[in-house]
C-alpha cells in the first residue's frame, strides 16, 4: 500500500494514501470530533456530506478550513486540528446548531445516547452566543417510528440509509436554507409513504429526531391487570445485544439473565421466538421442498426462487416496490406472527383461557415488527395475535424502570411449551441464519440422510450479497443471501429480468440482519458491534444440544397434537399469509 507523509499537529506520520484526514488522524490517536459523518467499515455504508462542519481542520495552503471527513491526505500536507482558528470555528458552528435545537435534553427519548450532546460537551459549550428563530414543525408519528423534525440537525444519515443503502426512497431533504427539512414526500406521515419501517433511519440518527414509538407503558398496564395472562416472546437477536444497555461488552450473550429479568417484570410465561423460528423452518422448508419438487418435475406453474418472508420490512418493501412479484416469497408468516397465532389458539386452549384475556408481548430488535403486529390480517375480531411489541431498547428501559440490575440476575430457563428452541432458531437473528437453518432441515428431509456437518461457513459472513451452492445429495441447491434492502432490490431485479439462477434466497432488511435492527442498542457507527453480535449468535447455536428445527421435541408435539403436518389446512390458516399490492 502506498504511503504519504503528513504532519498533524506538528508531528509527522506516515499514513496510507487514499485515507481521509479524519481517518488518518484517528489512526494516529488524534480523535477529531465529527457529527454528520458516519462510516460502517466493511459493509459499504458511509455518510459524509460534509455538512455539519464540526470536523473542520486547518490545512496549510488552503484558504478555508476543510472538513476532515471528506478531504484526502496528500503527501506533505500540514494539518492543524486544534488551532485557535479551528477551535473557534468548531465551537461557533456547534453553537449555531444548538441555537436551532430544542433544549429538551432532560425529556428527550435520546437522552444519554445523543451524539449531538456528546460532541457539544466535548467542545465545552456552556453558553449560546447566538439565538433567534427556531424550527417549529409538527411532529410525525407512525405505528413504529416517531419523527421530530425540530431535533433534526440535517446530518442526512437517515436519508443516506433510506435512499442509498435501503433504496426505499422515503426520506429526503426538501425546502431550502433554514427551512430545509428531511421528510417523506409531500410532507406525508410515514404511514402514507413508501416507508418499510425498517428503522435504519432511527438506528443512525445522532439526535432524538428519529426514535421508536415507546409502548412500554402498555406492557406495564397489562402486567398490572389481574384479569390478564401476559406472556412474552424474545427474538433471537435481542439476547446478543441487550447486555450492551447494561454496560456489557458487545457480543455478550445475556439469554438467561434476560429470561430472569422478564420473569421479575411479572410476565406469567417467558417464551422464545426461537421456538417459532423452528416452526417457520418447518413451514418454509416444506414449501421450499414442494416448490423445488414441482419445479424439477417440470411444473411450469411453480415459481423459483423462493424468498424468505420472516422480515416485515422486507415484506413492506416488495409490497410497495415489487408488487408484481409478490407470488415469489414464501407465504410463511414471520416467527413473531406464528408465535402469536399459536399462543392465542393452542396455548390459550392449554391454559383454558379466552383469547382476549391473553396478552402476547414481543421483544424485538426491530421497529417494523410494531407495524407488522398491527396488520389487519393478523387479528381476529379486532384482537391481534401479538398485542404489544417492544424493541430491545424499550425493554432495557423497562428493566431499569423496574429497578432490576440485569447483571446481578441468575441465568434462568425459558418456560415450556413455547420456549424450547434449537440452534437453528437462534440463527434467525443474523444474515444468512434463516437459510442456514432451513438448509439443515430441508437437507435431511429431502435426502433422508443426516448432515455430516451443521455449520455452513459458505452462508456466513457480512458481505451484502452472498451466494452458495449446497450439494443436496446430487442436487445442487443454489442459494442467495441479501441483507440491506438495496441488495434485496438487486436480487429482485435479477429475478425479474430472468438473470437469477437461485433456488432460494434469504432476505433481511437491516445490514447484518436482525442484529443490526432498528430497535437494537445504538451502534453509533461501530460496525464491529454488529460483528460481535453475530458471533454471539453463532456461539449460542454451537452450544445448543439440538440444532435442527425438525428435531425440536416441542415442535414435533405441536404438529402431532395440534397442527397435523406442515402446510396442513390448520397450518395454512394460522401460519401462512398473503401479500398486498401497495404500489403508489
Amino acid at each position: 500500500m502506498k504511503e504519504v507523509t503528513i504532519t498533524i499537529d506538528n508531528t509527522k506520520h506516515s499514513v496510507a494514501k487514499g485515507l481521509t484526514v479524519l481517518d488518518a488522524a484517528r489512526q494516529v490517536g488524534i480523535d477529531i470530533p465529527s457529527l454528520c459523518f458516519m462510516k460502517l467499515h466493511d459493509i459499504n455504508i458511509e455518510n459524509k456530506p460534509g455538512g455539519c462542519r464540526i470536523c473542520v481542520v486547518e490545512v496549510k495552503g488552503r484558504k478555508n478550513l476543510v472538513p476532515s471527513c471528506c478531504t484526502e491526505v496528500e503527501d506533505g500536507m500540514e494539518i492543524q486540528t486544534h488551532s485557535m482558528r479551528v477551535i473557534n470555528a468548531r465551537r461557533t458552528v456547534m453553537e449555531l446548531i444548538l441555537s436551532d435545537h430544542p433544549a429538551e435534553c432532560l425529556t428527550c427519548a435520546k437522552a444519554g445516547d445523543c451524539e449531538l450532546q456528546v460532541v457539544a460537551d466535548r467542545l465545552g459549550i456552556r453558553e449560546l452566543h447566538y439565538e433567534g428563530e427556531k424550527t417549529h414543525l409538527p411532529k410525525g408519528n407512525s405505528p413504529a417510528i416517531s419523527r421530530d423534525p425540530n431535533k433534526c440537525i440535517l446530518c442526512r444519515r437517515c436519508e443516506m440509509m433510506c435512499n442509498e443503502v435501503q433504496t426505499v426512497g422515503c426520506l429526503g431533504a426538501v425546502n431550502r436554507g433554514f427551512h430545509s427539512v428531511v421528510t417523506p414526500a409531500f410532507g406525508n406521515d410515514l404511514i402514507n409513504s413508501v416507508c418499510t419501517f425498517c428503522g435504519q433511519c432511527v438506528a443512525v440518527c445522532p439526535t432524538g429526531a428519529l426514535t421508536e414509538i415507546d409502548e412500554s407503558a402498555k406492557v406495564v398496564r397489562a402486567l398490572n391487570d389481574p384479569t390478564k395472562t401476559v406472556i412474552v416472546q424474545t427474538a433471537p437477536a435481542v439476547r446478543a445485544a441487550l447486555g450492551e444497555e447494561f454496560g456489557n461488552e458487545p457480543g455478550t450473550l445475556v439469554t438467561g439473565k434476560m429470561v430472569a429479568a422478564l420473569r421479575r417484570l411479572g410476565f406469567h410465561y417467558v417464551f422464545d421466538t426461537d421456538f417459532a423460528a423452528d416452526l417457520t423452518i418447518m413451514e418454509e422448508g416444506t414449501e421450499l421442498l414442494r416448490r423445488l419438487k414441482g419445479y424439477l418435475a417440470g411444473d411450469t406453474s411453480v415459481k423459483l426462487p423462493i424468498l424468505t418472508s420472516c422480515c416485515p420490512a422486507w415484506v413492506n418493501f416488495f409490497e410497495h416496490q415489487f408488487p408484481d412479484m409478490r407470488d415469489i416469497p414464501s407465504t410463511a408468516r414471520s416467527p413473531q406472527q406464528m408465535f402469536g397465532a399459536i399462543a392465542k389458539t393452542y396455548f390459550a386452549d392449554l391454559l383454558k383461557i379466552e383469547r382476549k384475556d391473553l396478552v402476547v408481548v414481543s421483544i424485538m430488535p426491530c421497529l417494523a415488527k410494531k407495524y407488522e403486529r398491527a396488520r389487519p390480517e393478523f387479528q381476529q375480531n379486532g384482537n391481534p395475535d401479538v398485542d404489544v411489541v417492544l424493541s430491545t431498547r424499550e425493554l432495557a428501559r423497562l428493566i431499569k424502570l423496574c429497578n432490576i440490575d440485569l447483571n446481578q440476575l441468575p441465568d434462568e430457563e425459558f418456560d415450556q411449551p413455547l420456549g424450547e428452541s434449537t440452534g437453528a432458531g437462534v440463527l434467525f437473528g443474523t444474515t444468512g441464519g434463516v437459510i442456514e437453518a432451513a438448509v439443515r432441515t430441508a437437507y435431511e428431509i429431502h435426502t433422508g440422510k443426516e448432515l455430516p456437518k451443521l455449520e455452513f461457513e459458505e452462508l456466513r459472513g457480512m458481505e451484502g450479497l452472498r451466494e452458495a451452492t449446497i450439494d443436496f445429495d446430487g442436487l445442487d441447491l443454489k442459494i442467495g443471501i441479501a441483507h440491506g434492502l438495496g441488495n434485496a432490490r438487486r436480487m429482485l431485479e435479477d429475478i425479474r429480468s430472468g438473470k437469477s439462477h437461485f433456488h432460494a434466497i434469504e432476505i433481511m432488511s437491516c445490514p447484518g440482519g436482525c442484529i443490526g435492527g432498528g430497535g437494537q442498542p445504538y451502534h453509533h457507527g461501530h460496525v464491529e458491534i454488529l460483528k460481535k453480535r453475530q458471533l454471539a449468535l453463532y456461539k449460542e447455536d454451537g452450544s445448543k444440544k439440538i440444532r435442527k428445527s425438525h428435531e425440536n421435541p416441542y415442535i414435533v408435539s405441536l404438529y402431532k397434537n395440534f397442527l397435523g403436518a406442515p402446510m396442513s389446512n390448520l397450518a395454512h390458516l394460522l401460519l401462512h399469509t398473503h401479500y398486498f399490492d401497495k404500489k403508489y
Partner: protein
Amino acid sequence: MENTIIKFAMGTCGIASGTQDILNLFDKELSRLNYPASLVKTGCMGHCYAEPTISITLPGKDAVYFGNVNEERARDIIDHFLLKGDHTEGIIPPEGDFSRKQLKIALRNCGEIDPENIQEYIDREGYKALMKCLTKKPEKVIAEIKDSGLRGRGGGGFSTGLKWEITRKSKSDVKYVVCNADEGDPGAFMDRSVLEGDPHSVIEAMIICGYSIGSNNGLVYIRAEYPLAISRLKTALNQAREQGFLGENILHSGFSFDIEIRYGAGAFVCGEETALIHSMEGMRGEPTFKPPYPSVSGYMGKPTCVNNVETLANIATIIRNGAEWFSSIGTATSKGTKVFALAGKIKRTGLIEVPMGTTLREIIFEIGGGIKGIKKFKAAQTGGPSGGCLSEQYLDTPIDYEHLLEAGSMMGSGGMIVLDEDDCMVSMAKFYLEFSIDESCGKCAPCRLGNKRLHEMLVKITDGKGTMADLQKIKDLSVVIKDTSLCGLGQTSPNPVLSTLNQFHDEYVAHIEERNCSAHQCKELIHYVILPDKCTGCTVCFRNCPVEAIYGDKGEVHSILDHQCIKCGICLSKCKFNAIIIN
C-alpha cells in the same frame, strides 16, 4: 439598391417595453409607403435606460440608434428620418459616453444580428474559429486559450484554459462540456442577453471546448425562467445541426458533438458547479465538497468542463484573433473585457462591456452618466450577494478580479448596482443576506444557520434594538461562516455585511447609538411628523392614510399617531404644503 436595415432590440427587456408594437408599426407603415426596408429582430443592444431601442442603417451609411421609441417617435422617425432624411429626436450618439469606453467582445453580435438566423452569425465570421480549431491539435487550442489569460466570468475567475487542460488530461470514455446559464444574481442579466442575442457564439465555443477536451456531449443548464433564451437557443441548435456544425462528423472532420438543454428551477445555488451537476442528475441541487473537481469527476461521475455563458462567448474571438490580441486587453492578471449589468440610481442603466482595468468612475460617471437627479453617489455594489459595496474611495480602482477582492468585494458574475445617499447600507447588507438565506441549500450548518443569525442581528439593528456588542458578534460570526461553509455561496454570503461594516461603520453606529437611519429607509427608526406652522388642515393626508393614523378636524392642524403609522409615506407625498417631514 440595397435596403434600409432597421433593427429592433428584442431581448426580453425590449419586448417587455413594447418593441414588438413598434416593429408592427414600422412593418405596417413601411409596407403602406412601399418603403424598401428589412426589419430585423435582434437581441439586446444594451441601452436599458432607453428601451424600446432600434437602429437604422441607411444604404451606405453607419447605423443610427434611436432610444425610447414610442409610437409617436416611431412615426416621427418614419416621416422625417426615413422619408425626408431630416434629423429626428431620440438619436443615441454613436460616439457618446455610453459607447466610447466600451469594447464588445462577448457582446460583439448582441443587438447586431438576428439570433434566429444562423446566416447572420456566419456572415460575421461565425463558426470560422471552429473550422480553424478542427484543423489544429486539441492541445494547441487549449494552449491558445491558456495563453489568452481568459478567466471564468461566472465569478470564480479560474483560468479557463487550465480548466480545459485538466479535463482533457482526465482519462475517461465519456466527458461532458457544460454551459452554466444558471444566472441568478439579483440585477444580473448578462448571460440571458448573450443567449438571447447571440446563441451561436456559445454553441460554437462549446463545440470547440468539446473538441479540445475530448468530449462529444454538451449540456446547457439554463433556468426555466428564461423562455426566450431557451427558444432562441433551441432554434440556434437546430440550425447549427442543419448546417453540419453540430452532430455526427462535424464539417467532415471526424469529430462529433451535440448539445442538450437541461432546465434549472431557478435556484441560485445551482450556479455552483457541483450543485448544478447534481441538479442535472436529477438530485437535489446541493453542492458537494471539492476536490474532486468536476473536471475530474463531474456529471454522472465523468470529467466535466463547466464554463459560464460569458466565458464561452469570448472563445471564438480569441481563436480567430489570437491569444496575443486578447491578452493585450485588460490588466496584468485579468485579460479581456467584462460584461456588467449596470443598474440602480444611475442615469444610463444598461448592459455594458468594458476592458478589464476600467475604473468604477469611468463606468458610473461616463458610461452610466452619473447619478440620477441631484443626489450624491454613495456606493457601487458589485458581485451581488457574494460581493460587497465600493464607496467613493474606490472610484478610481481599476476593475479586475484582484482589485475588487482587495477592496472587499468581488467580480461575481457582473451585476453592478449603483447606490445614492437615499440608500441605507445596513438595509442593503440585510437585503443581500436575505437573498442568501432564501437561496442557501441548507446543507451545511454555517450557511443554513449562520446567515440566519447574522440576518437576525441586522434586523435588530435596523429595528433600533442593536447594541455595539452585536457589531462585534456580526464580525466574528461572519468570519466563521466564510471560513467553514461548504461552497462559494456560504463562503461569500457575509461579504455584503463585512464590506458595508468596513466602509460605512459610522452608519451602523448611527443606527445603534442614535437610532438614526440617515437614508430614512429603516421604518422603525423614522417618524412622520406634521409641522403645525405649515399644516393648513386640508385633510388630504387624513383622507389618504391607509391605516387611519392621522387625525384632526378640517381647518385644524393634523397629527400623526406614531404607534399606528406604518411609515408608508403616502401622507408625505400627498401634502401640498410641505407640512410633513421625517424625523
